[in-house]
């Protein structure tokens, strides 16, 4: 596999720079000194087993949750140090796709997609209508404009949320597990959509996912995090070859290698009430 679009490893034009981030949540260390660069105009995938803190990382980048230590620069601004107003100004340029879509249940599909426009810009109704329908057309749901969120399937809700995330043409989009629960057709549509948005509008995309095969088709760069650290970084081709430690175990789906499958726990036999026998199988 050749990667003509592969970024140079030390690309200086990083729209997001994560430096020395440490996070503890509920007494549990989530990040232990993480560094990361998201190159501008590319698709970057962040992979890792569930519960490693992928969502937490996206929440750090968007200032929904502040890390205990470290810097996160988005477009040069250090997110943890921003005032609420500055943070909101920054967020107007960021699209965010929530894991569970997070559509506003009171509003129709149309009004959900129009919401950011109505809140921030005073546009004539006809223009709002045109913009919203264009975005809905892009996700294939122009015909669903009048439905309520409760009438949508999971995949449709995801696409509506995507239309809402791109309504103001952000410079950066963060996708939190956009493929979960999608059938193969819908998955391909979303994949193609993410690539199209990236190629035609030059939107920087950050993709949190664990469907490696799907991600490998569109990502320029991949990070794998586990145990609070970045354990691998490279193009999808490099990650498939397994140049970095831990990569094979994860993508080969082997359990309890360097990537633990088990949540930290007591001895299994002891938990089941068997007498503890040292070294027993």
């Amino acid at each position, binding site marked *: 596999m050749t990667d003509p679009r592969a970024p140079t490893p030390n690309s200086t034009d990083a729209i997001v720079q994560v430096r020395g981030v440490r996070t503890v949540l509920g007494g549990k260390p989530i990040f232990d000194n993480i560094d990361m660069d998201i190159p501008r105009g590319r698709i970057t995938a962040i992979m890792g087993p569930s519960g490693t803190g992928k969502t937490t990382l996206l929440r750090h980048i968007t200032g929904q949750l502040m890390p205990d230590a470290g810097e996160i620069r988005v477009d040069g601004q250090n997110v943890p140090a921003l005032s609420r107003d500055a943070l909101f*100004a920054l*967020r107007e340029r960021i699209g965010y796709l*929530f894991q*569970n879509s997070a559509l*506003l*249940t009171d509003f129709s599909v149309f009004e959900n997609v129009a919401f*950011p426009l109505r*809140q*921030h810009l005073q546009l004539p109704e006809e223009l709002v209508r045109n913009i919203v329908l264009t975005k809905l057309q892009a996700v294939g749901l122009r015909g669903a404009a009048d439905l309520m969120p409760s009438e949508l399937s999971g995949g449709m809700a995801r696409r509506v949320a995507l239309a*809402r995330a791109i309504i103001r043409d952000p410079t950066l989009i963060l996708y939190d597990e956009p493929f979960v629960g999608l059938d193969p057709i819908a998955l391909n549509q979303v994949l193609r959509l993410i690539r199209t948005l990236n190629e035609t509008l030059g939107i920087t995309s950050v993709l949190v996912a664990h469907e490696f095969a799907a991600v490998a088709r569109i990502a320029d760069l991949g990070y794998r995090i586990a145990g609070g650290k970045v354990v691998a970084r490279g193009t999808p081709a490099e990650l498939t070859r397994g140049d970095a430690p831990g990569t094979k175990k994860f993508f080969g789906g082997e359990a309890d290698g360097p990537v633990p499958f088990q949540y930290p726990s007591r001895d299994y036999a002891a938990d089941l009430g068997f007498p503890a026998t040292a070294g027993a199988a």
Partner: protein
Amino acid sequence: MNQIRKPPSMIGDALAQIGACGLFLVQIVAAIPKSLRHVVETIRQIWFVGAMSLVIIMTCGLFVGMVLGLQLYYVLSIFGGTAALGTVVSLSLYRELGPVVAALLFAGRAGTSITAEIGLMRATDQLAAMEMMAVDPIAYVAAPRFLAGLVAMPLLACAFNAMGIFGAHLVGVNWLGLDNGTFWSNMTSGVDVWKDVMNGVWKSIAFGGVVALIAVFQGYTTAPTSEGVAYATTRTVVFSSIVVLALDFVMTAFLM
């Protein structure tokens, strides 16, 4: 980590909640100028919580008034003063029962639904989604509901009082045979707009604010699970009832 000994957890938790609720009120008040941009949302909420509670509050007002008519007629008949029924009933309603009972009903009907609605928005990331769209949920969700409580509560208390007086009239005049003219003329001469009616209006504005604040706060800070929403809804009713009754005593003492 934290080496400071904590006070017994129930008292500590209660104090922490009161403190957090107070800070939340400050945030809401600070967001009110911004929420005026969402004035349509505020009007929608006033209509919503008002219309939602109107039927139950009017029904209960009628029954409370009828009971008052019976009970006070009995008491007044001991002193041979049944002609004062209209005055006594309307004073009880304006000064005390209207604001308090309407507020308790409002907590049970509108407060719970505000808490459940906001709690569900929290649990389904809708509040986080607003934050990500650079829309402040305090200004867009919390403040309009708080203002709706302030505006709707006195109106609802008025409806409660009107139905209560109607109920007392029904019992006293139509049923027990008091003179209609005496009933009304004693009432109009015995009730003072500023001392009595406004007394109740101040109370119901305060109660509306308190109930709406508690309801919004409980929803906003709920644990993002279905269990969390259920607990929060219960807490709204319990805390609102306690605070309304306690505040009623304090306000009565000061407004006397």
